């Protein structure tokens, strides 16, 4: 397939069009003889969105909704089944890993678990310098060292000389995560996928790491895809947000619009379920029951309809298309499509 070069709207760093990722389940020899089609988990099933330059875009939902898979597909860490990923005006969906290498300079990732994301046998200086070395940015060791030191200062691991030669186990969880932030930002990427970057940290440390990340973002104008299950946190970090349910985006728009006046019944339930640190707050009644069904056999029509308090006949039959409402939000729900 020829590479389609899309002339970009300058203010969009990433455009995802109808992205799908189906995982094929491995089966035993016997079952594969009986049934022809192997079972597929539709982890991501037709997701479209774009990320503006310098924007923090939230991707939120419960576990298993496909938010992490979407993030990894965007970086081509796993191969999407179909759809298009246009990064910085260039279609990267079908590039080989070799062709991608120079582009990797501009997209990075931060992971959730600070204990698993740093190689236990490498020193902090080598961990942070790794992207520099792979992309062959520095001409000398001195230059590399200077860049690493500057980065350590930026993430407030000071004095940098003290942290340079440490091994990961000599750092606390928060410090590790700052190393991960430094490593992701050292190439001044255009896009960072931050997959629950603070959800394993204690509250008192969490905001420190977040603030470091936000300041780096301000310095370099990096766009961030902030993947999270924590809507309260998303509200404070993101500018726009997409709510995912079983592999689909069901509502998307400005973060305050979506979280303060949710329109989709699922978003309504989700926002109502978030506990609020205020003892005077009267909890809203959560209208939905049950738990997220398996992505192996998702419900027909609107995937939310078996749990939806407003479900009609059409909901079980026809999948709602995504429409734009007057306030600019996108929503996929028959309550608003008029069907």
């Amino acid at each position: 397939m020829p590479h389609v070069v899309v002339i970009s709207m300058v203010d969009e760093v990433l455009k995802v069009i109808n992205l799908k990722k189906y995982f094929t389940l491995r089966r035993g020899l016997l079952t594969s003889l009986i049934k022809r089609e192997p079972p597929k988990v539709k982890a991501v099933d037709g997701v479209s969105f774009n990320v503006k330059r310098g924007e923090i875009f939230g991707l939120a939902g419960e576990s298993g909704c496909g938010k992490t898979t979407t993030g990894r597909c965007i970086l081509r860490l796993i191969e999407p089944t179909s759809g298009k990923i246009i990064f910085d005006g260039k279609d990267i969906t079908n590039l080989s890993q070799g062709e991608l290498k120079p582009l990797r300079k501009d997209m990075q990732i931060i992971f959730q678990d600070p204990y698993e994301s740093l190689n236990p046998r490498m020193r902090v200086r080598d961990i942070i310098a790794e992207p520099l070395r792979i992309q062959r940015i520095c001409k000398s060791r001195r230059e590399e060292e200077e860049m690493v030191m500057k980065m350590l200062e930026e993430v407030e691991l000071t004095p940098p000389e003290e942290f340079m030669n440490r091994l990961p186990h000599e750092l606390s969880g928060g410090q590790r995560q700052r190393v991960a932030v430094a490593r992701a930002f050292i190439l001044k990427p255009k896009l960072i996928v931050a997959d629950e970057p603070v959800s394993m940290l204690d509250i008192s440390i969490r905001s420190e790491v977040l603030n470091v990340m936000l300041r780096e973002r301000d310095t370099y104008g990096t766009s961030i895809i902030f993947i999270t299950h924590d809507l309260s946190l998303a509200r404070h970090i993101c500018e726009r947000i997409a709510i995912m349910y079983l592999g689909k985006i069901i509502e998307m728009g400005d973060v305050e619009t979506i979280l303060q006046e949710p329109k989709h019944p699922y978003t309504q339930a989700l926002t109502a379920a978030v506990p609020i640190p205020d003892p005077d707050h009267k909890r809203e009644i959560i209208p939905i029951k049950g738990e997220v069904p398996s992505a192996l056999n998702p419900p027909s029509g609107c995937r939310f309809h078996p749990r939806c308090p407003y479900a009609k006949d059409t909901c079980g039959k026809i999948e709602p298309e995504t429409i734009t409402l007057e306030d600019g939000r996108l929503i996929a729900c028959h309550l608003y499509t008029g069907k």
Partner: protein
Amino acid sequence: MSLQKLMEEHIKSLREFANTFFKNKFGVIGVAILSVFIFMAIFAPQISPYNPMDVKSIGVGKPFSPPAWIKIFNKDIPDDSVFGIMGTDELGRDIFSQIIYGSRISLIVGFAASFTAVFIGTIIGLIAGYYGGIIDEVLMRFADILLIIPGLPLMIVLAAILGPSIRNIILVIGITSWPSIARIIRSQVLTVKEMKFVEFARAAGCGDNYIIFKHILPNVMPLVYVNAAINIANAILIEAGLSFLGLGDPNNISWGMMLFFAEQYQALLRLAWWYIFPPGICILLVVLSFIFIGHALDEILNPRLRLRR
């Protein structure tokens, strides 16, 4: 606690490692025994009183002479019927010198064969575990076949075909004992490759070779060390076994071969215990020393064992 954190806890500078190692009783005993044998092997020409193959010493000692110190218990034995510290063999050669030179063969074969096996096993384990899919499938099935075939008969056949020489014995042992190592390494690779730092490296544009050698190999090395130590013990036993069956290199005296000749010349019937015990005990001690060292390494490097204590 995540595996990662456990692994990190066991990364220590060499000095710290040595400290923990020498706190371990097994480790200390193992190293002590082994250093005696290594000393023997290195300084064999200086230590051994005679040339082990020197039949001329018949002039001094008769065939099957018991060791000289036997006279403490039985003064009636004539002086010319006893010889040296460990007596003589069927040709009147000095057994003590043979034992000293024999340590060379045992250790060389042990180290070299184990190195071969660990080298092949590690490479195959890394490749199979990292790439997975059809490559993994093919390599592991091949390993399974080698594992299923009874080891000793295969080695006997191979040794017989290749002919008796040290190099061939090393090859035979190396080729037949890598599969179990490959399996162990592969399972560890499967765990490590799912870790996020590997994914980050990929996201940063690292190639497969870089990831395998920079990120995965260092994290499976502890396992490699443990397996190497235990494998040396195994290799020494196999060498002794093959030599005892007469498949050893006749130009180089080894403990297994001493037992082979002892058996051939009916040392047992002649009650020539000084011919049988020394090589037997030496094999036992060297093997034991490596097993102790392997055990100690395992306890230090393997988090699960440590937690149990």
